[in-house]
């Protein structure tokens, strides 16, 4: 019987690992709270019962901030150049997924994406459409490089895989936008 290229099977486990991180933090806090519930006198706030800070909090926050920035850049670019809306829409949606996976919420853009007449041109977006697209492409490539660094800095293996995946998507965005979007 011939074999078949291996089909993936770990997706849910990996995503579960990321969600599990939140659960672990919660469990730690819960355990600390329970340790104070006994009737016997206990020393106040012993070091062993103190909540352990998330060692990846900085990495997570940095990645969330970067994804929020990309969402806003996409919105501003489409507001200035509505013709880029179709080309950018998939990547914009991906960044919202990234933000959600990282535990953040998508920011409300300061400009609308419904048309050029609803707002003044946002600052920082080039007037030339090709230049604006190139700026988004560059931002995606930069983000991919930064997520790789975040991946390497992460202490949690599940978060590392998530950040590697986010960076991989951004590298592909940059490549797709360079391909004539």
């Amino acid at each position, binding site marked *: 019987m*011939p*074999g*078949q*290229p*291996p*089909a*993936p099977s*770990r*997706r849910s486990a*990996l*995503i579960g*690992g990321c969600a599990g991180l939140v659960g672990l933090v919660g469990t730690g806090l819960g355990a600390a709270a329970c340790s104070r519930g006994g009737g016997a006198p206990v020393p106040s706030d012993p070091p062993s019962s103190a909540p352990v800070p998330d060692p990846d909090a900085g990495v997570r926050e940095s990645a969330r901030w970067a994804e929020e920035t990309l969402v806003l850049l996409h919105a501003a670019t489409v507001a200035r150049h509505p013709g880029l809306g179709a080309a950018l829409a*998939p990547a914009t*949606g*991906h960044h919202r*997924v*990234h933000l959600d*996976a990282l535990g953040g919420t998508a920011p409300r853009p300061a400009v609308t994406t419904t048309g050029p007449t609803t707002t003044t041109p946002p600052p920082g977006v080039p007037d030339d459409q090709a230049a604006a697209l190139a700026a988004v492409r560059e931002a995606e490539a930069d983000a*991919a490089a930064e997520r*790789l660094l975040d*991946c*390497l800095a992460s202490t949690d*293996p*599940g978060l*590392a*895989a*998530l950040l*590697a*995946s*986010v*960076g*991989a*998507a951004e*590298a*592909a*965005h940059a*490549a*797709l936008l360079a*391909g004539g979007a």
Partner: protein
Amino acid sequence: MSEVAALQAALAGEHACVFGYGVAGGVLTGDEEEPARAAFDTHRRRRDDLARLLRASGTEPVAALPGYALPLPVRTAAEARELAGLLEARQAVLLADLVAAAGSSALRETAARWLADAAVRGAAWSGAVTALPGLDPAP
């Protein structure tokens, strides 16, 4: 998943990619011939790199299977592109596993870079990428 198990899974995936690109490369012509050849060579190199890593850790690398069932008939360029995109999407999952299982920063970085490569190559073949390559369900 242990690092060795993840390395073996990634190696098995590279064996499948080498086989698959051998098939796809036989169908793709013109401008698509060179990228197919480059992808075939890349997967062959990575297969060898992974086998070396496993041997260095005292583990016998998993061998290629005698044959692989193709997930779709590959008679046209469109089918060959679909196969190539599928190979990259499936390999991305194994590489995401390797990122998580890597016991060293060097291996994690290698796996993450290969994952990005898989996403970029897959996007080139299919014209699209999913939000979370390697974590989203592969076809």
